[in-house]
């Protein structure tokens, strides 16, 4: 307590930080530091089990706090903290839960495989926790600069994770591309913030909203420019067409478990921030930015589906499929009503869980056919149904869930977005959306077809990289935790697919107070 008194005497006025608001970030950051501390102190022997336990605890704690905040947010008025820079309301709490869910699955699935290519180092888990923190900061960011910082924390951590297997040429190339393009789009995003700041005099979302509500700018060129640049930044992060070009290469180059994690976490953070920014700050300008968002959405859905038709590499196909999903979520943002936002959140959590689960399965498939986390072409899947029927069936279910098969959250997610779009009377947009889903079914089925057709040909030796001292324990043990993670995601997908009401209620409470 002495420290607090000393501080209070100092002439500078410390902003009142309500630790309740930033609890999720603190927990994640604390977990990351703890892992680093433990690995630093414990010396030569690495303790992967302990690191993973700490990470799991951190993730669960973060989930707990977010759940508590969501419970609290039920009645609470606008709850801003840290001088209005952080908002913790139902929306951010729900985003926190989604982040926790992704973390939980990724921690279970990832490390087992990463161990084979990059040893037992704690860095992977630390980076994961840090990037998760970045995502929650973005979700809670009430100030454009805070959102930018969250974005950068998330992005930079992801650049490193993508290049985690630095020995492999493809991974290096993916990291480089992701870095350069990410940096470029962050710069543009930042310039957008600057222009918005110039036009409205503040970077705080609430204040911007208030400012724009009061005085109508005569020539709002600068503001709209800024808006457009912001949209590019978000568009890049969620890989909306035409800013999607990085994702196929990076998804293929990066290690599979990183790809799965990145596909989920990047989108959650970006979409949370996007919704909050456009819902609070630029609610007034909805007429101007809506057409852009719907344009991006349709491009992403249609081309996301079309470009995947001729792909032969599994992870590239899944990259395009997540572009298609991004299109659908953008549609939810475009709809803009409160109900649409909760439906979008429902889509987000459904998508996140399915994507991490699907990529987890891809890792297991790769591991079982000896290809370590590298690119995996469809032909290598041939005959999987004969050799590993259970694995093939679960993968088929998850892929079909992405396609929108009934009795899975995938279907309900697409359904809720269609409901939101129809509610704003945009029938033709809904038709285009569903037709893009129909096109998408074609390549989802090609994945399933590859697994269930043909005999398992012997796997031509993929040049297995020299693994620095990877423990050579039997694959079964290494995949055990991964199987738990995948089954959790399967149970979630099918469970809430059949009885979605609890999840929908949860999403309904996640409205933005801001």
């Amino acid at each position, binding site marked *: 307590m002495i420290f607090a008194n000393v501080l209070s005497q100092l002439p500078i006025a410390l902003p009142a930080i309500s630790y309740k608001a930033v609890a999720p970030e603190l927990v994640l950051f604390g977990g990351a530091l703890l892992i680093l501390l433990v690995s630093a102190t414990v010396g030569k022997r690495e303790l992967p089990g302990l690191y993973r336990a700490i990470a799991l605890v951190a993730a669960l704690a973060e989930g707990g706090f977010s759940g508590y905040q969501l419970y609290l947010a039920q009645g609470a008025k606008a709850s801003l903290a840290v001088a209005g820079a952080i908002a913790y309301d139902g929306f951010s709490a729900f985003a926190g839960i989604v982040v926790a869910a992704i973390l939980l699955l990724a921690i279970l699935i990832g490390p087992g495989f990463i161990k084979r290519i990059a040893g037992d180092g704690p860095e992977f888990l630390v980076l994961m926790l840090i990037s998760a923190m970045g995502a929650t900061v973005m979700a809670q960011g009430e100030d454009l600069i805070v959102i930018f910082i969250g974005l950068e924390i998330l992005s930079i951590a992801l650049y490193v994770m993508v290049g985690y297997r630095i020995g492999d040429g493809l991974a290096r190339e993916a990291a480089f591309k992701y870095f*350069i393009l990410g940096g470029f789009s962050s710069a543009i995003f930042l310039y957008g913030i600057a222009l918005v700041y110039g036009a409205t005099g503040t970077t705080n979302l609430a204040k911007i909203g208030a400012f724009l509500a009061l005085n109508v700018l005569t020539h709002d060129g600068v503001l709209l420019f800024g808006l457009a640049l912001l949209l590019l930044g978000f568009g890049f992060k969620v890989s909306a067409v035409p800013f999607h070009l990085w994702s196929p290469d990076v998804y293929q180059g990066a290690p599979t478990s990183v790809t799965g994690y990145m596909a989920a976490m990047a989108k959650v953070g970006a979409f949370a921030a996007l919704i909050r920014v456009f819902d609070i700050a630029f609610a007034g300008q909805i007429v101007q930015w809506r057409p852009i968002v719907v344009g991006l959405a349709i491009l992403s859905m249609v081309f996301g589906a079309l470009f995947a038709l*001729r792909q032969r590499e599994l992870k590239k196909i899944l990259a395009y499929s997540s572009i298609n999903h991004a299109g659908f979520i953008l549609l939810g943002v475009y709809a803009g009503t409160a109900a649409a936002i909760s439906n979008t959140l429902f889509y987000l959590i459904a998508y996140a869980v399915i994507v991490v689960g699907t990529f987890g399965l891809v890792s297991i498939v790769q591991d079982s056919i000896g290809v370590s986390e590298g690119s995996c072409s469809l032909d290598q899947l041939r005959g999987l149904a004969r050799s590993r029927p259970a694995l093939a069936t679960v993968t088929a279910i998850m892929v079909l869930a992405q396609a929108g098969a009934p009795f899975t959250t995938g279907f309900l997610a697409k359904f809720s977005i269609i409901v939101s779009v129809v509610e704003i009377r945009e029938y033709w947009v809904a038709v285009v959306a569903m037709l893009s889903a129909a096109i998408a079914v074609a390549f989802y089925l090609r994945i399933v077809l590859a697994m269930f057709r043909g005999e398992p040909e012997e796997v031509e030796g993929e040049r297995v990289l020299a693994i620095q001292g990877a423990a050579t324990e039997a694959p079964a043990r290494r995949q055990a935790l991964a199987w738990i993670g995948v089954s959790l995601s399967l149970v979630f997908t099918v469970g809430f697919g059949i009885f979605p009401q609890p999840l929908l209620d949860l999403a309904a409470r996640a409205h933005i107070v801001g």
Partner: protein
Amino acid sequence: MGAVGFVVLFPLLGFLVLLTFGRRLGDPVAGWLGTLAVFGSFVSAIVVWLARLGNEGHPYVLRLFDWFSAGGLHVNVSFRVDGLSVAMILFVTGVATLIHLYSIGYMKGDPLYHQFFVYLNLFVFSMVVLVTANTLPLAFLGWEGVGACSYWLISFWFERPTAASAGKKAFIVNRIGDTGFLLGTFLVFEHLGSVSFSRLTAGSLNLSPDTATAIVLLFFLAAAGKSAQLPLFTWLLDAMEGPTPVSALIHAATMVTAGVYLMARLSPILALAHTADLVIAIVGVATAFVAAMAATAQTDIKKIVAYSTVSQLGYMMLGIGTGAYTAAIFLMITHAFYKALIFLGSGSVIHSLNGEQNIRRMGALKKYMPITTVTMILAWLSIAGVPPFSGFFSKGAVLENAFGDSPLLWAAGVITALLTAYYMGRLVYVVFYGTPRFEEVTHGHDPHESPSVMTIPLIVLAAAAVIGGLLNLPVSGFGFLGSWLAPVFGTAQAAYPMSAGLKDGLMATDAVVALLGVFLSWRAWGGVSENPALERKIFFNGWYIDAFYDRAFARTGTAVAEVADTVVDRQIVDGAVTGVAGVARLVGGAGRKVQSGLVRSYLLIMVGGLIVMLGYVLTVAAR
């Protein structure tokens, strides 16, 4: 009266028993069982006739059960007993019994012996249902049932491709006719609200003339299909591919007369549609003439008889068209006797010349086959219309009514009568008289007379052909058939006022024409067996009608189907679908090129996207 149920039940039982145990019963027993079943049906027909002798007043309807009903349409399975149906079941089951008996001998040694009788019994069942059905759909069941049986029986020897396609052709042409039956039934239901014959009593129909005409013409299309009238008769010629008893029973005596029966049954409607009647009469007499001319030049014995059947059916339709229903039914019955006889006679000739059907390789058979020869000559004389044989009276009655309707029709009818006598005479002389030409066919030894099981039916039929006329003598008081059928046709029956002198004159001309025909055939074919002058190519090919149908419908049909399948469906309709998929894949391919892997091209595209957005924003801001 309830015995009509048994008339129907016996052949059905026969069919079921033979179907299940036929293979085990084997060669003769199956045949006898089949004959027994049909004979049982014949006996019950007689019982029904006797029961009916007393009160010919109103028809009796035996209702079994409700077949199907939906909305306003209620169809039940019920059988009608009135003058017409009793007459029909009597002569159908009678002739069928004789032909069953004949077939036992004819089909001896055939591997599928029992199957033949399965189809025959099913045929008799369908025929009996057809003639006694009280509702149009049930009649249609019988109608298509006989069509299907004729299909199975024609293609009985399916090994022969010609037989198989002949059967198929028969069924399809019949089906074309059947569409008329269906549409007629729908019209009847639409206007009268019911499809039962009891509703179609004369006088109670408030049908407008053109509806009546439409109904009659539609049903006539069906009759034309079944009774081989002009547009749809070609199938009967090919039907000769089937075994001879089949030709005798189905394509001479019973099935082909179904069309005439149907028209007779619909007489109340015909009475309201005079234009339609005229059409029927004209088509009838035209068919008679065309078929008769074609018959003069055939060399295959069965083809001659087939054309003769078509011609005689034309006469019956002439009778129907001119409103002379009794005369038409009378001609139908007598025709059944002598035409069955001629067919069976030809069958016994073919049987003894082990399968040879070309009359040019026959001749002088009267020495070896006395019974067949005598019965054939009797049949020839009655079909020619030489008094006092049955043909004279029945054809006479039809011609008399035709004259009453319009002398032109009568004239055509008389000319055809001459031709009939001529071509049948040609057949008899070439086959039974003249020089023997069957050496290489019978490998040297002489042909033998058919066994008694085949000749007995010949004799019975010959007797019937001779005394058939008694059924309905033109002398008042002896018109048994006329009085028997009067309650059925009632006012529909046309009565042309003619003086007795005119009637006698007409009868005289008939007799003279018949004798002239006989004389001409004797002069032309007494000694010689070939005479190209009299056997023109055009008639031999049946006026090229069949050839025309084949090219116009069969060939083009197959070609169209071929094109429809390979081109239209695969390329165009399916093409559209795969085209869309192709375009999608094309765009997919383009996508791969855009993904060039070069970081700087990605940046360029991103900036491009940004510029588009900024451009849009500017236009919005400028507004």
